[in-house]
């Protein structure tokens, strides 16, 4: 529950003005609905009395009947406006939620960032974000609108039909409805979170079963695995059944509440008429208003039932985020060497325009070393311009160091979008970078910088994608360039051209490259072997 509060704040802050207007119109819609039924009821009763008394001619029919028409049309118009405004506000909030998430995730360490490649992790994040989409539209806005409406109706009823009726309606609705919603929340929070969690487990189970099929058949374990997955499905459906039951109970309780409050309003109204404290027409207002107020409650039910799912998602997304980085002092940049590594496995110093190849079997820690220099892992024994990389402020560090990781990713969009991910550059510069990695011909053939790549950069071969990420790194013109297997997936000839191209494009940059092949390329001053 607590985890939801920062999310709500974030969503509201995303579009406070649109949200406020949407909420105001929601209240207007509810109020007009209540007023419409109240006025119609009063009008019919009052005309009935006037007709019986034979003073029909003297009765002012025009203002009330104009009021009925105004409310009927006005309510429809207000409903339209409400829909537009609340959807607009929700869409803004959705975008804000995703941007915040993107920022938070981006601050995590190398291991966590690499995990974001996993489809399971991504699917979970996205489904959590989806679960939070309903927070405003189904929980916050209807809840707020219902409360305000009840408060305003209370004052209006007290003034029009007398305080006993007003108290009967407010006192009947608000505390009991609050109790029903509280019970619903309590009963549904467990199962609605469980439905979500079991759904994830089911998804993983099915994927595991299909991908591990051969081993399961060989191990004679397929049947057992199927039974296990069916068991998860049964648990998830049992939770869904509990949730449905809680929701239906709440619905029944709410509709009984509406009937009861209306009944009470009828009795109180009758008593007022009997005492002569109010005319029948005025007393009838309370009955019709009590009936019309049902609308304020029903919209909230679904949102409350989803509370468990929402707060579970908020909790996972919230704990996923690392603490905001502390503000650092800018490091002292004077005099110190560009890069100095002094660890048990590696000792080396790198100055401007040096180039070193890092070799060794997989698993020897080449990638980890590069990640440490890039400030994404514990940087013990490493100094960059005299300061540990993981102690640098991120923005300052990125201005000095760029790294191309081994399994680097492209984004959906044009070639230009991909190249200018980090920096703006004119087309001439972009083409120069592409030609440095021997990719200019390929891109020209595919329609130039405006050619589109689909999700994850699909549309280019592995080697072409690799070279595009290298071109992207060249464009940031760093003082230190870290390359993890830059020539993987390239044939010997292209690999040779690409390495030379990078050196030519960045003559003053220090380069540290982890490679399996090509460590003897002339651009490298020396090579350094790491062993297990």
């Amino acid at each position, binding site marked *: 529950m607590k985890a939801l509060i920062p999310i709500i704040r974030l969503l509201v802050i995303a579009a406070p003005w649109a949200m406020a207007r949407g909420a105001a119109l929601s209240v207007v819609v509810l109020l007009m609905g209540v007023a419409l039924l109240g006025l119609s009821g009063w009008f019919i009763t009052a005309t009935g009395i006037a007709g019986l008394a034979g003073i029909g001619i003297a009765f002012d029919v025009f203002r009330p009947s104009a009021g009925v028409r105004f409310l009927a049309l006005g309510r429809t118009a207000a409903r339209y406006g409400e829909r537009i405004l609340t959807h607009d506000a929700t869409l803004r909030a959705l975008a804000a939620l995703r941007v915040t998430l*993107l920022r938070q995730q981006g601050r995590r360490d190398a291991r966590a960032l690499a995990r974001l490649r996993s489809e399971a992790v991504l699917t979970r994040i996205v489904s959590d974000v989806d679960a939070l989409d309903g927070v405003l539209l189904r929980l916050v806005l209807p809840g707020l609108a219902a409360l305000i409406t009840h408060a305003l109706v209370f004052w209006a009823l007290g003034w029009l039909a007398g305080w006993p009726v007003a108290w009967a309606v407010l006192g009947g609705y608000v505390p009991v409805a609050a109790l029903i919603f509280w019970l619903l929340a309590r009963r549904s929070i467990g199962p609605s979170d469980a439905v979500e969690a079991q759904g994830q487990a089911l998804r993983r189970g099915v994927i595991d079963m299909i991908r591990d099929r051969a081993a399961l058949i060989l191990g004679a374990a397929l049947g057992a695995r199927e039974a296990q997955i069916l068991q998860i499905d049964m648990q998830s459906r049992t939770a*869904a059944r509990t949730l449905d039951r809680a929701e239906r109970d709440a619905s029944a309780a709410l*509709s009984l509440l509406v009937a009861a409050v209306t009944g009470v309003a009828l009795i109180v109204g009758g008593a007022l008429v009997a005492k002569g404290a109010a005319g029948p027409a005025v007393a009838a207002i309370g009955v019709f208003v009590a009936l019309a107020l049902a609308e304020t409650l029903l919209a909230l039910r679904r949102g409350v039932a989803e509370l468990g799912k929402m707060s579970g998602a908020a909790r996972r997304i919230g704990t996923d985020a690392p603490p905001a980085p502390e503000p650092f002092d800018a490091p002292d940049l004077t005099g110190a060497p560009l890069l100095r590594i002094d660890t048990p496995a590696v000792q080396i110093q790198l100055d401007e325009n040096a180039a070193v190849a890092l070799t060794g079997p997989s698993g020897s820690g080449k990638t980890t070393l590069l990640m440490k220099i890039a400030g994404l892992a514990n940087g013990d024994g490493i100094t960059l311009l005299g300061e540990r990389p993981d102690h640098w402020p991120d923005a300052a560090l990125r201005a000095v160091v760029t790294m191309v*990781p081994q399994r680097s990713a492209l984004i959906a969009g044009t070639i230009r979008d991909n190249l200018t991910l980090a920096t703006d550059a004119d087309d001439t510069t972009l083409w120069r970078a592409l030609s440095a990695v021997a990719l200019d011909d390929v891109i020209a053939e595919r329609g130039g910088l405006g050619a589109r790549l689909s999700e994850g950069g699909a549309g280019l071969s592995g080697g072409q994608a690799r070279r595009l990420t290298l071109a992207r790194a060249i464009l940031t013109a760093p003082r230190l360039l870290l390359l993890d297997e830059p020539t993987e997936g390239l044939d010997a000839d292209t690999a040779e051209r690409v390495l030379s191209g990078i050196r030519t494009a960045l003559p003053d940059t220090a380069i540290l490259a982890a490679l399996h092949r090509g460590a003897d390329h002339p651009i490298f001053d020396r090579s350094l072997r790491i062993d297990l």
Partner: protein
Amino acid sequence: MTSPDQDSNRNDRARAKARIIAPVAQQLHRASMLAVLAGLVWPVQAAALAWAIAGWVEGDIGRTLPAALIFVTGGALRAALDHRAGAHLFTAADRTIARERAALIGREARARADIGSAQIAALIVQKLPLLQPWITRYHVAMVRVSILPLVLLAAAFWVSWVAGLILLVAGPLIPVFMALVGMAAETASRRQMDEISTMNAMLMDRLSASLDIRLLGAGARTAADFTDRAEGLRIRTMAVLRVAFLSSTVLELFSAIGVAMVAVFVGFTLLGAISFGSWGTPLTLGQGVFILLITPEFFQPFRDLAAAWHDRAAGLSVVAELDTLDAVDRVSFVGQAEHAAPLPGPLTLNLTGAVAALPGRRVALPDFNFAAGEALALTGPSGAGKSTALAAIVGLIPLADGRVEVCGVHLSDATADTWRARIALIPQSPHFPDQPLHAWLSPDGTDPWPALKMAEADRIVRRLPEGLNTRLGETGGGVSGGEARRLMIARAILTGRDLILADEPTADLDPETAAQVIRALTRLQRDGRSLIVATHDPALIDALDRAIEVRP
């Protein structure tokens, strides 16, 4: 005249109904009847209120209490009926989803189709539940709309033919608008779903590139760019929604005008300003209040149906997907994959004229004999059928022709399980299920360390932050390709089986890592196991006893 397109749409709908709705028709019928009964309680409640209020005017206050009692009892009855109807509906939907899920879970791993596991998981987990609103909302709304408005219309006519006429005119116009609104609501909801899924795709895309974005220092720019795109998307979506919402407003407008006209007409009649519309005797106050109260309920079923309209569309599209999945070609394996005692006798394998049956094509396999203790390489260029040969040997793919003889018996449904009980397979692309490493390596709890040492994988496990308790998860995060292969070899050793099959165990590995894998494999042979390896790596072929070429 109907176009062929409409006909096929209608056929699809009929098939979908037969598949999803027909099996639970009885449940749905019961729920609909309960929901209709609940709707019929309202006129009684309305009459009670009208009777009491008329009593106030006529000086008969004594009606108040009984009327309140009738009203509350009616409310309780309505709540109970709806509650009960909901229970039937939930059961109907639950049964349907359980049935379809069980069918998919029981089929998709047994008989593989060439469809990604993530796509099937999405269908099972996210899409099947979309059948629920179709089953629970649409059907009941349809039954209610065909009964309740007629009953209320009759009640209105019985009191006043003008009021009845107002409803009759406003009512039938609604179906006309409903088609429009149904379509518009569908557009609106689809548009919003599209917006969300586009934004989610963008989010996944950017999240999966997070490492690159961070290393390039492009975090702030990416966030700003995301905001811009989301803003553009919002503006376009709102343009569509403005129009789509407008048409659903028309439906509400009709019901609002209907209510206002009835109220005004009743008011004027009661005043005596209008003297027509009722049957002989003038309209009474009680009748007026009654008509006012039933009018909104007259329109309600139409609005419910309009709201449930796109539930049906969503349900139908799920059924279409299920139908497509039913129709794809599948490969099922030989045998039952049940526990069986290992096939007795010395290990032998003979292939004669074997042809593997894959969906839509046949793959001829080379003839060869293989005996216990041998280490054999199946070679050939990629796509020649090396993996298919391995799969056919273990009975993962049935034969179209020829025979595979194992330990002297024919490989068939009867013998496949016993034959497989002697084999371990090391697949090309490692997959780690979501379970701790020790459970994955040795489900029976044997000490994994000797096997890990033999596969040169002990250091890998020691280096993992949680050692044997690490969950490697879907992509094997935390281990490299070569490390994953060596873990797979350790797992094969731990099965204790005497024939080990490996599919391209050195693909995509650097020479040093490949050498480690080759050493681990040859160590297996020295340990007394037999080995069949599909590979085109010369270093690996050299390390084995002999090679047989698979030709496309």
